[in-house]
């Protein structure tokens, strides 16, 4: 795409054009190529050592019994078979991760979209954006520790549920009925600011003329939102749902801090399963296999989203 303009623009003034082309192109072209290799070398070297090689290693490791210390032996697909058929923890972690995503994704998208529209009418839009972004930028460990305090049985949430509404609060994080939803609420609080900014920017770029035309045609309120604004923003919605989906399937830190996967295994996520297989049970082969299964899930769902986007994402604008 970009190469044609370069050739056109670098074509020298008419006087020079008379010179034989091959020599002109050969000289600087080769030099340019060597410069390019030089420029690329740190990035390519780093990517090879720290990404491409580990990916290849991860494939190999998933096929081996590979303890952190001790003898390795080839197993074929046994690690995968173990995870899918024998390991009681893995399928539970898949279920938990899906449950988290199924709760977190719609809540996050709907709330951040709603908030983005709400603040778009304010002249302090920028201030609101920054304020809602605070938990998105502060360390997840800190956010989780703060919420752990809020969720304590004698903590503020329980206190106000009791004194304002007379509801006896459950022990949010220790009750298997409320642990996951508590993690989700904290995560939505943490993650909403990010998507708010993406949506907010998309709202700012909505074409005025189309909106005005729609209003003249009588589109107001919810109708205007559903029929005009939302379709115009569909690329942003698609982007946000895809990215949020990917990150929520990788949830780890907040559950690790809030519940350590408990009570029982009711909030153990796929990443925690990988972490524990690898670095608590010290069975790196099983951990690698689990990581590939996580990757497969992410790829599969992302692929479905990309295939499905034709039905509802409009890129005309």
């Amino acid at each position, binding site marked *: 795409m970009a190469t044609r303009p370069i050739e056109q623009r670098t074509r020298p003034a008419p006087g020079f054009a008379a010179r034989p082309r091959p020599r002109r192109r050969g000289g600087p072209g080769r030099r340019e190529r060597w410069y390019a290799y030089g420029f690329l070398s740190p990035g390519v070297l780093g990517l090879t050592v720290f990404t491409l090689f580990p990916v290849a290693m991860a494939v190999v490791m998933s096929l081996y019994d590979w303890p952190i210390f001790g003898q390795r032996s080839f197993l074929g697909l046994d690690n995968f078979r173990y995870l899918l058929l024998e390991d009681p923890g893995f399928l539970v972690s898949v279920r938990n991760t899906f449950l988290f995503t199924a709760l977190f994704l719609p809540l996050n998208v709907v709330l951040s979209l709603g908030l983005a529209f709400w603040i778009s009418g304010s002249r302090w839009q920028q201030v609101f954006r920054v304020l809602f972004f605070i938990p998105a930028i502060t360390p*997840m460990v800190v956010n989780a520790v703060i919420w752990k305090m809020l969720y304590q049985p004698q903590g503020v949430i329980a206190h106000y549920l009791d004194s304002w509404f007379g509801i006896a609060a459950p022990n949010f994080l220790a009750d298997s009925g409320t642990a996951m939803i508590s993690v989700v609420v904290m995560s939505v609080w943490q993650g909403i600011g990010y998507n708010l900014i993406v949506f907010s920017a998309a709202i700012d770029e909505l074409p005025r003329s189309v909106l005005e035309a729609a209003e003249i045609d009588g589109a107001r309120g919810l109708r205007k939102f559903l029929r005009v604004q939302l379709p115009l923003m569909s690329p942003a919605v698609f982007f946000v749902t895809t990215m949020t989906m990917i990150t929520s399937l990788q949830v780890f830190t907040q559950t690790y801090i809030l519940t350590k996967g408990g009570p029982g295994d009711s909030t153990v996520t796929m990443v925690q399963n990988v972490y524990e297989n690898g670095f608590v049970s010290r069975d790196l082969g099983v951990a690698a296999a689990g990581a590939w299964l996580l990757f497969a899930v992410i790829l599969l769902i992302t692929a479905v989203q990309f295939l499905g986007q034709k039905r509802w994402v409009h890129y005309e604008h």
Partner: protein
Amino acid sequence: MSTDKVRWTPRRLVSHVLLIAVTLLFLAPVVYAVATALKPPGETFADPASLIGSHLRWRNFADIFDYLPFQRFILNGLLVAAIGTLVVLTASSLGAYAFARLRWRGRDGLFLVFLATLMVPQEVLVVPMFILMQEFGWVNSYQALIFPWAFTAFGTFLLRQFFRGIPYELQEAATLDGCSPLRTFLSVMLPIARPALGVLAVFTFIGYWNSFLWPLIVVNDVSALGTVPLGLELFFGQNGSQWHLVMAASVISLVPTLLLLIALQKHLVKGIAATGLAGR
């Protein structure tokens, strides 16, 4: 909304009052954390609940240093994040320039390889990366905290997009003046790319500062090599019931990112809006 005066209809007023209430509720956990950090011991869950304890106990912030070397965690975090950011900026701007503006065979193919690596989640990499660190003798080292994640293709991709938007005329003028590609890169392209470099730098820095899973795996000796999230987790594990101290430590951990947010808010917002993915 811009400059024209907005009229305060009752509806707008109610909407704003509600919005401000929602914002305050949203920020309440952070405010409550700061308040708790200033409470005397044992008053965290005092009944009746109040934001401010019997007195403001600033000493909490000094006390946490008696339990764990928090200054060490902060310095470790700053060091790792600063060097990591420098490496990321160097490697990805050089690579991005070669992808965006130099002509060489295999360019598009190699770029596809770079893009493909973006899809691989960190979880797939951590397991073999740990083996790699063992082989390098890097387990429990600063190198292990810095280098494994300094060469992701994201920065290269982001800067390539930016470089492609810079007019060719500038590059040509430099070439006609006899600048080598390296010289052109250093004195023409980099200065223009400062906004993009800034966005990449901030998000990379925050990514390092906040990262948890990898330090948890590769650092054994937290009191020597711990970063802030790791140190906080350790502190929390040991003193979980002393909420006033836990919150003091938390608040200290919040400060660097909050300062960055306040100082660079406009750029951050623009950066997210423009690039979409950064900083996750």
